[in-house]
């Protein structure tokens, strides 16, 4: 499946069996998170480590 990169605007290849939350890296250098909701799929830049992240 192809979606538009929110950073550079070019196509990003996403596997057909993608799971919501999966990370894909685009050739432009963007690290993107796949968000799968009822209406479809969107890509958003992955946030950096947050202050409350951990185990």
């Amino acid at each position, binding site marked *: 499946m192809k979606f538009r990169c929110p950073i550079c605007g070019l196509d990003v290849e996403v596997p057909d069996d993608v*799971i*919501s*939350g999966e990370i894909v890296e685009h050739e432009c250098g963007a690290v993107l*998170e796949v968000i799968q909701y009822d209406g479809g799929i969107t890509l958003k830049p992955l946030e950096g480590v947050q*202050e*409350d*992240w951990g*185990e």
Partner: protein
Amino acid sequence: MVIKVAVAYDILRWEEKALINAVRAAGAEALLLHTEVTTVNLSSEDSGLSADVVLQRCTSHTLAVESTVVLEGLGLRVINSLKTVSIAVDKVWTASVLKANKIPTPVTAVAFSPDAAFRVAEELGYPVVVKPVNGSWGRMICLARDREELRAIIEHRRYLPGINSKVYIIQEYVRKPGRDLRVFVVGDEVPVAIYRISQHWITNTARGGRAVKAEVDSELEDLALRTAKAVGGEVLGIDVLEDPERGYLINEVNAMAEFKNTVRSTGCDLHVKIAKYAISLAKR
């Protein structure tokens, strides 16, 4: 009827993907609760959410606690429970519960002001370790070798916003042998442990610590299970220090533990064990 295991997560790490695949491989249905898209109407008669058991796997401690509040409020069985997650993400609470249950830990004191933090550090004796109330992966853990270093740490903390700036956890510095242990509990078993070896005193693998399989002796197994019982935990990653005189000391408890380095270095398929444990609960 097919057993349904939900996985609540915000970031899909190797661990979450492995758990989802393991649930499916065991013949159960995996329901994905990605916090990015999941909403719950607390006023609705039917939330639309149903599962036999939920694995709590959020990376954000805030989302882990709050999503468990919601899920348990809907009557769902969550691993780990709200009590366990809440204790584990709060280092003061963890230390208090472990003490109440006579679990050996490093000497730990809590102060609620900079002046009190200085006083308690003097009582413990330098060097001391200064920890935040909420933190992980070794983040914001500092070593103060003398009063001047403690002053610098406290002064920086004092002007940071948030709860971590108001409470000071001052702990003795344990002279561990270049490593510590990460011990895993799944149900009533201790299936695997690793040494985290590092030249640095902070040994988290997230910071470059090297994972090597460790043997679980009966003392370590007993201590890990007692710790799990104390915090009500079912699937835990427990950090253990080895003190040259006192032996094993429980340092921290992790309720949403990462384990890819453990799987890779030991060959123990923790994700399969956790998935099967969750499914076994649904069958009871």
